[in-house]
């Protein structure tokens, strides 16, 4: 048996890294177990001429395609949206795009304001200082003054508008609709040891420049210097409990495949909306026959994805294409509920810049825009470097039939049952997506685009994994309380996207990390009475 630690964090991604750093100042013995490896920037795709091809292989966003030894399989056959994640130090921040909006104040009050789902047990004002602290730690670029948000500032200036952003800005002004340069985690100046963005244009499959804030280069260096231990290639099989009903530690497989028991006083789950319910369900025991912390029956239920509608077209002159970060602008013109629409809640438009030559060719060939034969070259010249597009990030409401369970057959390389995802897009969200597609057509037309194409939902668009261990004050209607502690197991905490009550209509990483810092702070404030 290994030496007991005070705090054991499972997962080193967005939330696990933030909590590890925050808790380090307690001087407790903190250990993080990560099933993946440390990443090497010299191995990232944009170092080589095959940089685009690798997004279809070892840097695919879908673990089922990527299939690294550090990945685990996910049965998402029963979902129109496929799960996207990454397993390594930094978790999915290695392979996110760095679009970094916060939730809105109204997102925490959806029952009170709009009569749907449930209010959160925390609010924007409570989280605001943690948003700010997280912005400083991750290093956010952005522009103050956005009328869509309460006042906030970013430590770095925004990304340039470029040709694509200016074109979209003019179009949105013509329509009279809101737009603003996106908050991003791409450094635009030197920041905390990170080099500024040099427009490699290939942000999602990991940033070779180190300008994109993944937690392996933001929180973790600070946390490790403060004494936190990070152990890689450690895949947790189950959380164990003692006769007192408290978590006693975890059983994991180390880098050599050897089973280990790691005892701990406090266990913190940071595996996000698929990995966390999987682990809780795999931790069923005689005392917890339906899975750990699952007396409510809600572990794995209410999975929310943010169905994305992607709309793009082609303009008559070259634009930024892949020679700039795909991030550009956002619009929250249609974010807040409007009773004149046929849906409640809303969505964010995320504007992009374009794609590289290979990506253009592959996607256009699949869509039938790129012919075989003599006409191929002329057709490609009308497409290459001329794409502009946007995506609608649509709020997904919690529905308990959208869920994560354990697959009865599929297992990972250690024989641990794999997660199974069953998901359908709700009626409210479908109406929202239709609205967003219609508005996007208007935007693209105003921006001078033709040959408009739609992918809705984006098949490989399950980036945001939310809601499968929701927070709340009522133990019968939630898995964790208002500060992240499991109702059923008082030394077990959950800090990732699974605790979300509703999804908002924004990329979630900023809010996930603010919540993780808030929960870590709650733990620190309550150390003497933490298990009461």
């Amino acid at each position, binding site marked *: 048996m290994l030496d007991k630690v005070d705090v054991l964090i499972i997962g080193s991604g967005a939330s696990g890294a933030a909590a590890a750093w925050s808790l380090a100042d307690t001087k407790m013995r903190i250990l993080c177990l990560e099933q993946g490896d440390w990443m090497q920037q010299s191995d990232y795709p*944009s*170092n*080589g*001429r*095959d*940089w*685009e*091809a690798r997004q*279809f*292989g070892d840097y695919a966003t879908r673990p089922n395609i990527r299939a690294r030894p550090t990945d685990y399989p996910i049965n998402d056959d029963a979902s129109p949206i496929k799960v996207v994640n990454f397993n390594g130090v930094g978790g999915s921040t290695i392979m996110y795009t760095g679009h970094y909006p916060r939730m*809105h*104040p*109204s997102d*925490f*009050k959806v029952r*009170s*304001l709009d009569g749907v789902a449930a209010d959160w047990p925390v*609010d*924007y*004002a*409570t989280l605001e200082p943690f948003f700010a602290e997280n912005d400083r730690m991750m290093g956010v670029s952005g*522009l103050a*003054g956005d*009328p*869509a948000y*309460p006042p906030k500032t970013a430590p770095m200036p925004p*990304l*340039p*508008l*470029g*040709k694509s*952003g200016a074109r979209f*800005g003019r179009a949105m*002004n013509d329509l009279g609709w*809101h737009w*603003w340069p996106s908050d991003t985690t791409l450094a635009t100046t030197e920041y905390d040891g990170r080099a500024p963005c*040099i*427009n*490699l*244009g*290939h942000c999602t499959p990991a940033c*070779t*420049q180190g300008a994109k804030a993944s937690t392996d280069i933001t929180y973790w260096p600070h946390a490790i210097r403060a004494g936190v231990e990070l152990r890689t290639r450690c895949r947790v099989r189950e959380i164990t409990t003692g006769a007192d009903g408290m978590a006693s530690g975890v059983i994991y497989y180390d880098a050599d495949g050897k089973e280990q028991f790691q005892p701990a006083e406090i266990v913190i789950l940071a595996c996000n909306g698929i990995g966390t319910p999987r682990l809780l369900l795999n931790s069923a025991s005689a005392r917890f026959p339906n899975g750990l912390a699952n007396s409510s029956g809600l572990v794995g239920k209410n999975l929310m994805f943010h169905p994305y509608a992607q709309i793009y077209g082609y303009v008559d002159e*070259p634009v*930024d294409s892949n*020679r*700039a*970060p795909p991030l550009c602008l956002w619009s929250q013109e249609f*974010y*807040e509920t409007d009773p004149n629409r046929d849906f409640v809640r809303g969505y964010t438009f995320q504007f992009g810049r374009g794609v590289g*030559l*290979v990506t253009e*060719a*592959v996607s256009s*060939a*699949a869509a039938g825009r790129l012919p*075989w*034969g003599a006409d*191929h*070259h002329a057709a490609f010249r009308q497409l290459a470097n001329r794409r502009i597009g946007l995506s609608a990030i649509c709020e997904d409401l919690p529905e308990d039939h959208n869920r994560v369970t354990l697959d009865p057959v599929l297992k990972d390389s250690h024989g641990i049952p794999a997660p199974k995802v069953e998901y359908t897009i709700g009626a409210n969200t479908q109406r929202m997506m239709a609205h967003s597609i219609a508005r996007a057509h208007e935007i693209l037309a105003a921006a001078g685009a033709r040959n408009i194409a739609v992918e809705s939902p984006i098949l490989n668009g399950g980036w945001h994994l939310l809601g499968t261990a929701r927070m709340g004050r009522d133990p019968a209607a939630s898995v964790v309380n208002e500060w992240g502690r499991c109702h059923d197991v008082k030394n077990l905490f959950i800090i990732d996207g699974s605790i979300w009550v509703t999804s908002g209509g924004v990329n979630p990483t900023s809010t996930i990390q603010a919540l993780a810092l808030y929960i870590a702070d709650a733990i620190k404030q309550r150390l003497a009475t933490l298990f009461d």
Partner: protein
Amino acid sequence: MQTQFLTLDEARDLRCLAGMMIPPSAELGMPGADDPAITADMQASIGRDLEDVRTALAELVALAGGPFADLPPARQDILAARWRAVERPALATLRRVILQCYYRDDRVVRALGREARPPFPKGNVLEQGDWSLLDPVRARPKMWRDVAGG
């Protein structure tokens, strides 16, 4: 035991298909996708796509009743059109293998006005754009909803 690379017959059929997909253009200074350097790249980098490419080529050979590359061009056109009429994963992979090698070839990339290099370390220059475009947005009243208690 399955080999790591395509067989000679498979490679000939893939090269033939590549040339049908993207023929050379002397006018534009573009090689065809059946150019030896490009098809050599396909062979060398096929990796995890080998199985899908083999599947797709086998379907084509079954339609042709033998090596596709040996057929007269008119017959190849008819069979290739039939073979690619129904979209499927193996076909998509084969098509991608051709396109990703073609559109990273130095001659092709340069002919399309791009530098033949990886993104790192040189990067690119992104113009700032006209920030005064934001003025009408800055002038808007606040859009977020106030909520009781924060």
